């Protein structure tokens, strides 16, 4: 029987949607017994939310002042300590999980599987390689603890409706002081979050300037959508780096993805493969984005986007 420890991602107040997706992935293991661990300075609210996820058997709450910020070097020894009785340790494949889980794996001398997209058995999983161009099925040697990050775009969130017990536990391991949080600058916005939004409108290099990129914001607002960007648009300074979609940005699976002035480089497509409907607007009829788009429109974005906005307002 699989005993799975899921490391919760949160911002101190709310659970990140990735956690519920990890739980859903873990439920794919036969007879899985799922425990969620919440590391925080004060994890009461987050632990309560985790306890409500369907399929969760138990929540372990580890409150320590050092856990106020998610520092991998500080969290890893605590996760490793808690992991002893578990067969699997899962975290989301977000920057939080990607940073933390390999450090945990090394402390446990366990192999890690990154970006798990499907569960075949307790020791056999599928994951993407080569920017999603080759999907490998991997088998971990029997009897080993398995650390994994879960590709959040591949799993639905497990719904609320459970009622697991929350247990406060003390993890007495020495924590390093060599790594200190100095700050985070997040562009605060009222728009939906890129990773969990059901609709996303993205702009590429074709926008030409940060000023013009406002066109994308306008259309997104009309659609109640989150805003994304290609790497070229981010590199050129039209959009913030946390909006980048793709192999090295965010991997997303919205209901609707609208790519505007984006050519469709393989590294970008990797990030949107699981979108339900892809719409592409590009002036080049040969652009590779049209090979994956469900609905394509060839034309000049500077004419199309304002017109679309008008149609959607009407």
């Amino acid at each position, binding site marked *: 029987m699989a005993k799975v420890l899921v490391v919760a991602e949160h911002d101190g107040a709310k659970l990140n949607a990735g956690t519920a997706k990890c739980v859903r992935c873990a439920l794919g293991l036969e007879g899985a017994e799922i425990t969620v661990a919440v590391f925080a300075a004060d994890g009461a609210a987050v632990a309560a939310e985790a306890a409500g996820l369907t399929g969760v058997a138990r929540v372990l709450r580890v409150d320590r002042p050092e856990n106020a910020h998610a*520092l*991998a*070097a500080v969290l890893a020894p605590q996760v490793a300590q808690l992991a002893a009785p578990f067969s699997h340790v899962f975290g989301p494949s*977000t*920057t*939080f999980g*990607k*940073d*933390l889980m*390999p450090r945990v794996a*090394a*402390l446990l*001398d366990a*192999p*890690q599987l*990154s*970006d798990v997209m499907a569960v075949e058995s307790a020791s056999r999983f599928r994951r*993407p*390689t*080569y*920017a*999603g*161009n*080759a*999907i*490998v*099925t*991997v*088998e*971990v*040697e029997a009897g080993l603890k398995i650390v994994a990050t879960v590709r959040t775009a591949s799993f639905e969130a497990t719904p609320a409706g459970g009622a697991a017990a929350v247990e406060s536990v003390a993890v007495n391991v020495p924590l390093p002081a*060599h*790594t200190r*949080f*100095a700050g*985070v*600058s*997040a562009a605060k916005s009222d728009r939906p979050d890129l990773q969990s939004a059901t609709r996303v409108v993205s702009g590429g290099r074709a926008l030409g300037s940060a000023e013009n990129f406002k066109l994308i914001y306008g259309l997104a607002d009309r659609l109640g959508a989150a805003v994304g960007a290609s*790497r070229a648009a981010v*590199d050129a300074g039209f959009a*913030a*780096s*946390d909006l980048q979609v793709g192999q*090295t940005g*965010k991997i997303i699976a919205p*209901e*609707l993805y609208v790519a505007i002035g984006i050519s469709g480089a*393989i590294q970008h497509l990797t990030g949107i*493969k699981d979108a*339900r*409907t*892809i*719409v592409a607007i590009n002036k080049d009829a040969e652009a590779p984005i049209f*090979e994956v*788009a*469900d*609905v*394509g429109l060839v034309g000049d974005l500077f004419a199309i986007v304002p*017109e*679309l906005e008008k149609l959607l307002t009407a």
Partner: protein
Amino acid sequence: MKRILVCVKRVIDFNVRVRVKPDGSGVVTDGVKLSLNPFDEIALEEALRIKERGEAQEVVAVTIGPADCQQQLRTALAMGADRAIHVVHDGGVEPLTAARAFLQIIGREQPFLVLLGKQAIDDDNNQTGQMLAALWQRPQATFASKLELAGTTACVTREVDAGLETLEVDLPAVVTADLRLNEPRYVKLPDIMKAKKKPLDSVSLADLGVVPGARVRTVRTEPPAQRQRGIMVKDCGELVAELRKRGVL
């Protein structure tokens, strides 16, 4: 000597359209262009800039791979690394094995900073730097888009999902490079000539006392599910109508 160690891996060039072999045993590598992992080039570029600012004296590039990946180490030397170390090993190594080998190199070289790419674009593991930092019991700053040294500490800006996070870490530390850390320089012909004379040492994993793990076996390699090419509409009106019809608006 203030030394920076940079881990560079040879991978299939990022411009190559990778194809899965029909028998599912892996991807086609015959006749395919191989290059330094793009993130590792960025890591190396950062090390070179630190040295050029006078904040380090030597940049050492290290790779683990088969005999013929010396070519990519020569590229690293041509970019400006002072020395290279080739850990000769046929076939791939698991991230934890790579981290163990790098830990041994660290023991020999005593760097104050170790730079890696955030991920190798072949296996897309994104693990080695973090594992190395754990084994070394030192700080890690992954996904770096800015790195400033200040005496015994470093200030690193990281590209995280929420935005840009800044960490202060004590040195020595492990830093992994993200795309926007810098833009790597182009190698010039005279540099390629000069690189031929730079020292390149070879060791084996066994010399380092590292036993390669083979705990994760690849059972099968498949191409991804293809999306079907959809339809084209001719104007905004049709587009909106089509999306309404599909129930996404």
